[in-house]
């Protein structure tokens, strides 16, 4: 094998004054080899994205590479004048971004945007350019390339847009492809297709790929080499098999151990009292439509039925647009369902009006997805925790005393009660959100993707906490997630949703062992890194 195509030596990237550390990246060494995928793995704030941007020359203003070299084809990229770096971009090195909607210009057709790369870097005539674009769109397996060429970004699905982005980056056969979380914004089935595509194309074009990700499942799926970063430092690097099978560094072990296993948990003894019985739940969204035209109807939920026993966790699994969030919102009655019953321990709350509903609100509470939007930035934690019980008629002193207990219950110190939400990290905020829901002493907890915005190590802690609290308080939980790994660890039973319908439901272990519905099978086949079992050494590291 030849030498590295990209050789990063001793790279340091400084942050502007006032940041929480002086260097985003310190003395990083990293190599990219032709025809290989190097995964850079790390949690948020590890400096992995800035490394990618330093390679491309896209560092934000006030952030500079202060030390080190990035050698590419015998030249140090950091020492090149801006004009020469510009000529390299798009031609010899290309980048795929995370969010394909914002990475494409919404006012330009896809074909025109890809053509721009050719206009900048080649003298091909219009016919040659068009042929080349069509051939490439075909290569990235876009259906009907002729239609895609003249389509605007909003006319394509997320997966199609990402394919178009990949086509744009590959059009001049770059030697280096930098992909910054290219599948994070995509659904799991689409993610699987895109990963397969990147693997194939990279094989064919023999490019060196730098793949930035936080997801060890994705790493296990496509990496040849792995570099693990933490707080701007390289923790460990080596061949994929070695890092995944026998990680040396403590941090790598803990990261791998935090990846939820795909082996479902044993179902707990059921047979408790029925807490929640949902039958025939339906919700239709109507959009558009004026005086004379009929509004467009979308069935967000159709004939959804399930039941939940006391102390049980039911997972609702599905991709975006499957209706799982709509169901969650109907359960807590943020939305009024159009049909069906929601029987909460004997009372049907589906049709209740605002006033009639108020005394029952307390009994079903929700934990939200976004730790940054779910807490009022202008209220102190103490107020956030106490206002629910006070609204329900508890004396204020009692409610404030209780908020201290709640903070300890979710693993925070009682003295943080006087702080504002912005003083907490994402994981801590999610704990506060959980405490707020528990403050009302609910019987059913609806958790809508409660850990999907968190780093994997924090995710594991929050899941553990939720499980612990569920046991201690005897809560029934409806757990909405798109992540089958999380579902396997948390849920006693799961229901799989697709386009508003529950296509399959049953005990988690049964569904995982023998999925019946074709869509469920497709979902399982798409889980990144499903063939990889984290090594025992990593588990041992956590047990310690």
């Amino acid at each position, binding site marked *: 094998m030849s030498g590295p195509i990209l050789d990063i030596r001793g790279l340091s990237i400084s942050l502007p004054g006032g940041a929480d550390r002086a260097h985003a990246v310190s003395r990083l060494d990293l190599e990219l080899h032709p025809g290989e995928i190097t995964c850079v793995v790390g949690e948020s704030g590890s400096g992995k994205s800035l490394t990618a941007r330093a390679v491309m020359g896209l560092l934000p203003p006030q952030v500079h590479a202060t030390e080190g070299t990035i050698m590419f084809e015998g030249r140090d990229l950091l020492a090149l004048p801006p004009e020469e770096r510009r000529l390299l971009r798009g031609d010899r090195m290309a980048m795929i971004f995370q969010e394909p909607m914002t990475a494409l210009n919404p006012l330009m057709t896809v074909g025109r945007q890809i053509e721009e790369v050719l206009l900048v870097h080649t003298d091909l005539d219009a016919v040659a350019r068009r042929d080349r674009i069509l051939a490439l769109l075909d290569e990235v397996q876009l259906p009907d390339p002729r239609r895609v060429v003249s389509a605007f970004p909003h006319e394509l699905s997320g997966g199609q847009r990402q394919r178009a982005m990949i086509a744009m980056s590959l059009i001049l056969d770059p030697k280096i492809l930098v992909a910054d979380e290219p599948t994070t914004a995509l659904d799991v089935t689409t993610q699987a297709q895109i990963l397969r595509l990147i693997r194939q194309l990279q094989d064919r074009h023999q490019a060196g790929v730098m793949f930035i990700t936080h997801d060890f499942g994705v790493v296990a799926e496509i990496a040849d080499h792995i570099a693990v970063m933490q707080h701007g430092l390289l923790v460990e690097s080596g061949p994929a098999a070695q890092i995944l099978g026998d990680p040396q560094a403590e941090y790598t072990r803990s990261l791998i151990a935090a990846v939820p296993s795909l082996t479902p948990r044993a179902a707990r003894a059921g047979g408790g009292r029925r807490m929640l019985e949902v039958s025939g739940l339906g919700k239709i969204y109507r959009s558009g439509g004026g005086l004379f035209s009929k509004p467009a109807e979308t069935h967000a939920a159709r004939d959804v039925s399930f039941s939940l026993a006391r102390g049980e966790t039911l997972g609702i699994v599905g991709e975006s647009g499957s209706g799982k969030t709509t169901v969650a919102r109907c359960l807590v009655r943020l939305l009024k369902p159009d049909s069906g019953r929601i029987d909460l321990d004997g009372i049907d709350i589906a049709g209740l009006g605002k006033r009639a509903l108020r005394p029952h*609100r307390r009994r079903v509470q929700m934990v939200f997805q976004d730790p940054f939007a779910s807490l009022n930035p202008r209220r102190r934690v103490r107020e956030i925790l106490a206002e629910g019980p006070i609204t329900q008629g508890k004396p204020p002193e009692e409610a404030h005393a209780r908020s201290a207990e709640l903070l300890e219950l979710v693993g925070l110190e009682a003295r943080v009660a006087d702080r504002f939400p912005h003083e907490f990290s994402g*994981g801590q905020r999610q704990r506060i959100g959980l405490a707020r829901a528990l403050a009302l002493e609910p019987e059913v907890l609806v958790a809508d993707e409660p850990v999907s915005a968190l780093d994997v190590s*924090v995710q594991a802690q929050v899941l553990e906490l939720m499980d612990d609290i569920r046991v201690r308080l005897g809560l029934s939980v409806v757990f909405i997630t798109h992540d089958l790994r999380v579902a396997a660890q948390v849920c006693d039973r799961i229901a799989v949703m697709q386009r508003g319908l529950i296509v399959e439901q049953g005990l988690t272990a049964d569904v995982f062992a023998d999925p019946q519905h074709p869509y469920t099978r497709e979902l399982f086949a798409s889980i990144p890194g499903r063939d990889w079992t984290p090594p025992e050494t990593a588990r041992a590291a956590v047990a310690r």
Partner: protein
Amino acid sequence: MTDVAPSPAAARRGGSAFWRRFARNRAAVVGLAILGVVVLVAALAPFLYPQDPFTIAGRPLTPPLQGGFLLGSDTLGRDIASGMAHGARTSLMIGLVATAVAVVVGAVMGGVAGFYGGWVDDALMRLTEVFQTIPSFIFAILLVAILSPSILNVIIAIAVVSWPPLARLVRGEFISLRNREFVQANVLMGMSDWRIILVQILPNCLSPIIVAGSLLVATAILIESALAFLGLGDPNVMSWGFQVGAGRSVLRRAWWICTFPGLAIMLTVLAINLVGEGMNDALNPRLRERSA
């Protein structure tokens, strides 16, 4: 816990950080200084010029610095400096009160429209549009003419023509905030709507309201001056606009009668605008970085 929280000191620096960001805008500091002088003069007016500003103090049309007049006298021999000091009280009072009324009305209308949406929003916004389609100054003249010129009616007129933009601003903020998850959590607590609107959402859109409100004060002072200039101000209250109006017929013989009150109007409005700009920078720091 492996995840680290930002330091708690960040919150305690809040107050001083506001002033640091405000002071970064030099023009805003100058504006604040001018405004400070105006406020000082207004506060000290009864001590500097204890006499009624309408009393005849000496010979008419005395130029500045003569006959004991700092800024000269007008066509009836009234002291211009005294009138300006008392006029500053009028201008500031009307500006602040009219703005306060407009902000309260606008915030309630916009908040209710943004929070409830649907037909409530439609109805309130159509009403707002009715007010916005009428040229505001002509509307204000009309209102004062119908209601008879008095300080209260001038304030009402200014407030009535000033609230629609605020209602639109607050409505926009409410629409973006009302679907935040923390508001939904409050709904799940069984919290009443008015409590969510006032206690939970409103504090989150105070910054834009304060900025818009500070600029409204300047507009209110301008409208008041213009009304007084046209003779539609309260005849028993001295104001800058009235002084300019009284001097316009002798503009070529006695330039000082119009000039000094006119300058006072200009400087005060400019100062308030600069301060508003500075508040915008200080309260919406992200906007500033984007444009820098």
